[in-house]
């Protein structure tokens, strides 16, 4: 039985490689049928914004890769309710179907997984 891995992604999409690397780990794990969870926390919630135009900065669109997560079998997708609210994003549409969790649910989530990595 393979160990389950929770990836906590807390970097904004345009600021550096962190967001993409977290997503790559999730997709790679999904491709190997590992039980993967992905949690968007802090500035990581900006990755879910549907109005991004990264081409303005000569960058690739991360949200296209996000859509691939369910196809790679990564369906345990979560976002921090508090991080959304702090950024005024609680009513904005998300580019991906994610489950909103409060702080105590996040601590229970981390508890459920065998391994956790935060990027």
């Amino acid at each position, binding site marked *: 039985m393979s160990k389950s891995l929770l990836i906590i992604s807390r970097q*904004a999409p*345009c*600021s550096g490689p962190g967001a993409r690397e977290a997503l790559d780990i999730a997709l790679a794990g999904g491709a190997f049928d590992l039980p993967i969870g992905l949690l968007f926390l802090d*500035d990581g919630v900006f990755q879910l*914004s*549907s*109005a991004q135009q990264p081409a*303005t900065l000569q960058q690739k669109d991360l949200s296209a890769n996000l859509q691939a997560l369910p196809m790679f079998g990564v369906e345990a997708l979560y976002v921090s309710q508090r991080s959304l609210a702090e950024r005024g994003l609680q009513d904005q549409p998300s580019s991906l179907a994610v489950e909103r969790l409060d702080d105590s649910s996040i601590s229970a989530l981390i508890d459920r997984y065998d391994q956790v990595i935060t990027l």
Partner: protein
Amino acid sequence: MATLHVLSHSPFTDSRLSSCLRILGSQDALLLCGDAVYALQDGSAQRQALELMPENIALYALNEDVQARGLLCPTRLKQVDYPGFVALSCQYDKVNTWL
């Protein structure tokens, strides 16, 4: 001596923006670029703080970073491009970049 303060880090993950707003001089200006433009996120306390800044303090945001993140710039801030960024850097006596 007027200073242009340049912020490039997300205002949600550290205290640069709030510190900067507290210590801005009456002739100073603030330019947001990179992830600092997330301060323009509608509904956030950071945007409210920017909109409440006295009128004499000039506030700028780098246009392409605003666009890339899909944000809408409130009218309180002027949007500049890179040549505008350079012009501002020359216009002020000094530039303080909050690295």
